[in-house]
Structure formats: C-alpha cells, structure tokens
C-alpha cells in the first residue's frame, strides 16, 4: 500500500465538556475517495476542520501528507482544497475574480492563477457567468464555483464538507458528475455526507460515524453485505397497527426493524418475504421491495435514521 496521505490515530476533539470527536482512527490512501457518513452532530465537520489544519486536536495523532498540522498548518493548507459546508465565496467580488484572488492567497503568480481560473471556470461550467456577481448565481452554481475555487492551488487532497446539502436533485447530479471526474483524474477526495446515495456514488471507502466515534468501516457494498441483507421489504399497516403486525410477522426474513411509520423486513428475497406476510393473512396498506442501502447499515449500527 502506498504511503497514506492522511493518518489519524485516536484523534480527539473536546470543546469544554463536549467530546465532538472521540478517538477515531482512519487512513486515506492517495487517489482514494474516502467518506465520513453520519447524522448531523456526529463530529464529521470537526474532523474535517482538524484535517484541514484549521482546528487543533485535543489529543491523538494526525498526519496530513506526512506533516503534523500543529506544526505545519500553512504548509499543509497550501496542499489542500477546502469546500466548506456553507459557501463562503467572496460576495464583493465577481465570479472570475473570486478564483483569481483566492489563488493569490496561496502566493501563486498572477499569470498562473489567470490560466487556471479559465480552465476551472470551464470545468465548473461557469465560463459564461464569469463576470456575474456571486449573489446572482444559483445554489448549484455557487457550489460549483466553491469547488473550482478549492482547486485553484491544484491541491493533493480535496476536502468536501456536505457538498450537496441544500441542492435540488438536478444540481446534485451535475455536482456528482464533476466530482467523479476529479476522482478519475486521481484527486484524493475526502467528503462528509449524511446522504447515503451520495456516499454510494462517490466513496470507494467510508466510515460510519455517530457521536464522535467510528461505528464501521468499509466500501459501501461491503458495509451493506456485512450489516444488512440483500433486499429490504418495507410494509405499512398504519401507525397504530404496525407494532401489532410486527409481532405476528416475527420470523419473516432475517430481521425486522419497526419504525414509527413502517416495518422493514431484511431478507435475501424481498418478494418472498412479502408473500410470506400476505400468506399470514396480513394486508399491508403499502409495500415496497428495494435493495439494501447505507441507510439500513446506519440504522442497524445505531438504531437511528441518518436524517431525523
């Protein structure tokens, strides 16, 4: 295995008496696309800030590109691209100027920055908006500009904190496509998300985090294989009848999960499970057979949903 670009060991961050990150271990290999999946407040953003060398860890060891962020913050930051959770584009500058000025923050020569800015505008599909005011861009365009900005220093690692939160489905797909291209070019991506579909689309490997701890680690497919079944049957009987129906359904599938609004039946064969349920004389109002997802993995590991 090549030398990892990020190594975290017993990484911990404590704010007052609140432990945001509670002794996590992970490594990211060069060119890998690595995800932190977890609900809001799981400690994902705090971890990203420590990796981004803008937050000092409380304890544990952290190495970014072989350097300790405590000693080499600016050196490390010069090699990172950061896409924060909330866009912090420069509202007082126009689209292209945002890229130029940001490049200058890294001490890059004007000519280099100008050349890269034009290429990145093309990449972000914003060339025709280069003179626009930032405020006049749509949410998806702002995100793409933020990503373009994060690439101006040709970073070795791109950190993306919730890159598509708040975007409409179409804008998300455009963004995923752009990120996928970066991944193909060999950029190391580290991203946090609470969207399972995003993690499945973009991550080679991910850790599931909850309450500052890592609950599981692996590729999306491996995690689903390990913690869930191949298929899931969702049945609804009405909120007051779900519990009673669940009792009668004991034994159907590998495992049942009773949620307030529905019952999840984990099974290798969802259709067969549905047949078994109707055979018992139960008549669900609605039923749905689907493939297992990371949402199910999370539910299994924590007993809670990702998005609450």
């Amino acid at each position, binding site marked *: 295995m090549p030398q990892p670009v990020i190594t975290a*060991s017993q990484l911990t961050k404590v704010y007052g008496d609140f432990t945001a990150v509670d002794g996590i271990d992970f490594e990211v290999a060069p060119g890998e696309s690595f995800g932190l999946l977890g609900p809001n407040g799981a400690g994902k953003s705090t971890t990203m800030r420590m990796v981004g060398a803008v937050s000092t860890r409380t304890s544990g*060891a952290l190495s970014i590109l072989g350097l300790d962020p405590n*000693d080499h913050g*600016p050196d490390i930051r010069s090699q990172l691209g950061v896409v924060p959770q909330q866009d912090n584009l*420069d509202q007082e500058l126009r689209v292209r100027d945002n890229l130029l000025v940001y490049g200058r*923050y890294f001490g890059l020569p004007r000519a280099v920055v100008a050349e890269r800015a034009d290429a990145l505008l093309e990449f972000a599909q914003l060339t025709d908006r280069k003179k626009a005011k930032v405020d006049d861009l749509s949410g998806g365009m702002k995100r793409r500009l933020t990503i373009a900005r994060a690439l101006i220093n040709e970073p070795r690692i791109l950190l993306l904190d919730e890159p598509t939160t708040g975007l409409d489905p179409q804008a998300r797909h455009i963004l995923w496509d752009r990120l996928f291209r970066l991944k193909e070019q060999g950029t190391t991506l580290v991203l946090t998300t609470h969207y399972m579909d995003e993690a499945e689309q973009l991550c080679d490997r991910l850790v599931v985090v909850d309450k500052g701890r890592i609950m599981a680690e692996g590729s999306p497919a491996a995690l689903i294989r390990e913690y869930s079944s191949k298929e899931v049957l969702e049945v609804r009987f009405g909120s007051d009848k779900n519990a009673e129906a669940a009792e009668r359904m004991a034994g159907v599938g590998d495992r049942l999960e009773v949620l307030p609004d529905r019952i999840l039946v984990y099974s290798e064969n969802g259709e067969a499970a549905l047949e078994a349920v109707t055979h018992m004389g139960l008549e669900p109002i609605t039923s749905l057979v689907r493939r297992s997802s990371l949402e199910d993995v999370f539910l299994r590991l924590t007993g809670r949903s990702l998005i609450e």
Partner: protein
Amino acid sequence: MSAANLPAPATTAAPALQPRRSALYAGNTGAVIHRGLLATRSTNYLVVLSGFFEPVFYLLSLGIGFGALVGTVQTSTGQEVPYAAFIAPALLAVSAMNGAVYDSTWNVFFKLNYSKLYQGMLTTSLGPLDVALGEIFLALLRGAMYALGFMVIMQAFGLNLAWTALLALPAVLLIAFGFASLGMAITSYMKTFQQIEWVTFIMLPMFLFSATFYPITVYPEAIQWIIQALPLWHGVELVRGLTTGALSSMMLVHVGYYLVMIAIGVVFTTNRLRALFLK
C-alpha cells in the same frame, strides 16, 4: 471499527502545540490588500464620501463661520493663530480617525461575522498576521485618503501656516494606523451590530472634547488628565503642532503613544484571528 485491521500509525502523544511563528505569517499581505482594492469597486461611494465631508462641514461652519466671531486662539505652545487654523489640524486628525475606524469596525465586523471572508482566507496558506496587516492597511488607506483630501482643502483656505505641515501627512498615517489596528482588535470581540454603535457613542464625545475646538486649558486639571489619556488628543496636538509650525518635544510623546497603540492593536488582532479561526 476496526483500528485493528489498519496498520497502526505512530501513536505519539500530541500535546496541544502552539502554532509556530511561521504559522502566523506567510509574507503574503499583498494578496489581502489586492483583494480589498478589488472589492472597493463595489463599495457604496456615498458612505465613503460622507466620512470625508463630515470634517469639511465642521471646518466650514465652525472654522470659517464661527471663527469670524472668535478671532485668534492660543495653541498649547503659546502661539496665537486664527480660529480656523486652530481647528483645521484637529479636524484633519479626526478625518484620519473616522476613515480608519469606519473601515476597521463596520467593514471588518461584516467580514468577520457575515461574509465569512477571514474564515475563507485562513483555509488557504495565509496566516492570521497576513490577514490582520492587510486589513489594517486598507483601513489606514481610507484614513489617509480622507486626510489627503482634507489637507488640500486646508491648503486652499490658507490654513497650513508652516512648511512642517508636510509632515502632517505621515503623522496622519500614524494616527490612522493606530485607530485601524486597535479598532480591528476591538471589533474582533464584538458579537452584534449594537455593540458597534457603542464605538460611535464613544467616538463622538472624544471628537468633541479632545481639544478639538478650543484649548485643553479650559478644563480643570482632572479632566485634562482624562483627555490626555485618550488617543485623539495626542493626534490633534501632533498635527496642530505640525501645521502651525509650533514644534515641541511633546510631539515625541504623541508619536510614542501611537506606536504603542499600533503594537497592541496588531498583536491583539493577530491573536484574536488565530483564536477565532484556527481553534
């Protein structure tokens, strides 16, 4: 997980190390200034101009109008000068202060808390000292521009009484630097716009009472001590000495006062930016 199946990284205990000096400064203040100049293109020039005209209006109404009734006034070095020539240098110091304070409070507050500008800057290889120096320089620049405009008006009205008035320009830069650096340090502690109103509330009496419109000797001694402890009085006396040509060794004290003010402001601002964004 799972630490078990990872190759164990070196688990050296890491005590919270202080960022080293190099972590504070990347020698790239120019990029921050460049950004500021680009951004002023979209500035509301009405606001900029109002800060310039305020002291000009005071000069016209009080200096020219009211001055006709007053005649001459004695400076702290015992020289008799026309009233307009007495207050003009004070208003020059005030215009430098206004420009620097406006930029380092309102503008910096917005960038700190709303546009998240500094947060973005500090995720790059810029250090907090680069940001602090760049922003202070921009505030100073505004103060200097106000002052330069005001000096031209003074010259036009014949209120520069000695060649040493030329030295008032660097003196005014010093004053703007002092107010800009301290202003930015104070702004970094503010959480609401209401708190910035307090700055205005403090500035107004300082403007009116710092021997701006009459000699400090009108006050009882105890009040004089208070006035002399405040920064504007030092600025007013320094500039007045230079434009009226009444030089004295006290000027060194005034300059020293501002040097200390600048040092405190820069150190505080840098530490605050680090505490706020690199915690």
